[in-house]
């Protein structure tokens, strides 16, 4: 197997390979350190972090669905101060780029987190989560209109020097128009997709399976929707696209790159195989080597139409 150059660039950010973790599915990395040498990863994307601690939603918070799962965690997190003191401090020494997923109920909330993180050297980039379906205010509301999305990106852009990734919601009529709106406000990259809003009802109890009623659908079930959106967005914007949604193995990762993604994130697959990220990195290298592809970045947008 010949050596494949696995490096990719997301704007100013150079990653040693295109495989990162999807926010909220990998804790702060520490939880998976028994299974994955974090320095093997393209980047660790942390769970969503807000200014103040958030308690999240009631239990049950998850439900299994065909080839997927629903979650309504609700962005439970200890707040940005505790996050910096504990998670970030631990991550700082791990030789892996750290991308912090930022959440807020209001524009000011997002801005406050971004400002606080500006002081932390360990932060390689921010991922603005304007697409979480699991909180009542903010979250997805910002991500489903161009104006809402533009407004929060503009405000955060003004206070951060870090590469700014904006995570888009798939629960929209036209994701391309949202992607264009955030690009126009200075986003350095877009990541997609967050979860699809879904619901499951227990036919034994007649109750929703999630205490919150609705939740976010992730896993292989949503992959075709995610691939389609990555393909649409990648051809419409100039900034790099980070693709995710149901990536289970290297073939799936390659599919997203062919569709136009410069990098990918692995979420639900971590629950199936705690070493999924590493298996995908190795598999992607093999995928390229077998086809005589010298640089993994050549896969980006290489779909033949």
């Amino acid at each position, binding site marked *: 197997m010949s050596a494949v150059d696995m490096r990719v660039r997301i704007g100013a950010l150079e990653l040693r390979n295109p495989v990162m973790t999807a926010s*909220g*599915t*990998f*804790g702060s990395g520490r*939880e*998976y350190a*028994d*299974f994955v040498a974090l320095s093997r990863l393209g980047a660790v994307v942390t*769970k969503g972090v807000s200014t103040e601690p958030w*308690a*999240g939603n*009631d*239990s*049950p*918070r*998850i*439900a*299994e*669905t*065909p*080839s*997927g*799962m629903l*979650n309504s*965690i609700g962005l*439970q997190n200890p707040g940005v101060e505790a996050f910096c003191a504990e998670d970030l401090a631990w991550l700082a020494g791990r030789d892996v780029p750290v991308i912090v997923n930022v959440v807020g109920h209001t524009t000011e909330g997002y801005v406050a987190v971004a400002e606080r993180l500006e002081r932390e050297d360990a932060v390689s980039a921010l991922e603005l989560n304007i697409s979480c379906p699991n909180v009542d205010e903010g979250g997805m509301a910002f991500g489903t209109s161009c104006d809402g999305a533009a407004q929060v990106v503009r405000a955060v852009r003004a206070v951060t020097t870090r590469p700014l990734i904006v995570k888009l919601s798939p629960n929209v009529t036209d994701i391309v128009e949202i992607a264009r709106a955030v690009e126009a406000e200075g986003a350095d990259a877009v990541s997609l997709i967050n979860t699809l809003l879904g619901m499951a009802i*227990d036919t034994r*109890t007649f*109750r929703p*399976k999630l205490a919150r009623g609705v939740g976010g659908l992730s*896993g*292989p*079930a949503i992959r075709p929707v995610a691939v389609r959106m990555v393909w649409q967005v990648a051809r419409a914007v100039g900034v790099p696209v980070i693709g995710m949604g149901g990536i*289970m193995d290297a073939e799936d990762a390659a599919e997203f790159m062919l569709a136009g993604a410069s990098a990918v994130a692995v979420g*639900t697959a*971590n*629950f*199936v*195989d*705690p*070493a999924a990220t590493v298996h995908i990195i190795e598999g992607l290298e093999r995928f390229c080597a077998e086809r005589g592809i010298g640089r993994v970045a050549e896969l980006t947008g290489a779909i033949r139409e």
Partner: protein
Amino acid sequence: MSRAAAFSPALERATVLANARVAEGVWLVALAAARTASSVEPGQFVHLRIAEGTDFILRRPFSVFRAGGGRIEILYQTLGRGTRALATVAPGVEMDLIGPLGSGWRIPEGAERALLVAGGLGVAPLGMLAERLARDGVAVTLAQGAPSAGRLLARELFEDVCRRTAYATDDGSEGACGFITMLTPELIAADRLDVIYTCGPEPMQRIVAAQAAEAGVACQVSLERLMACGVGACLSCVVSTVHGRKRACVDGPVFDAADIVWEPAADPEVRS
């Protein structure tokens, strides 16, 4: 209070050695899983992948009922599609598991007398514990409740290592007729207990916890929550405690009963 130093979990490829029905709707599967068998502590669990493919996207958590000689045993109830599928798995099949996971039972320094209270499949995490306590010279009483005599589980094991066993069945076919929580006040009063361990339906555990608190005896509970990652990353499995929301998969499944903020009884995930 001693809790064994956490042994880091790993992915282990296990081979099914035997898988047989032991009571109505209850099965015992034995797996060759040397690493887990040699490192698991009482009350810990494994996160089992039911099948390849995406039909069962979530692993299923199961307590280790017994462990030793390179094998672990899981006592399980066929409840839903995952456990029903598990019951069809034949010896020789390989399945992967993550283990050992979670914080197990804690044995108070110098404990001499312990009471174990199990409802239904609640016996599952108590098998290893009873053996360990007996080995350590603790006098163990087991109180087990079940729908009927035929559903009282692992009697041999417990009658072997326990100083005393007490049973209650819903239909009165063995022991007292009714809930096991009718017997526990008396068992608690009869003995100068150092600790009470309980597992079973959450309403039952809650009653036992209240009885223990009233009697001033330390009590540990083992709680079930739906789990995605099993390793503390996803926050699927939170339990409300006086110290805030804790993760059942790493901070538990065993908790000090005194720390628990009990949730409304209608919680649809409590079923067993």
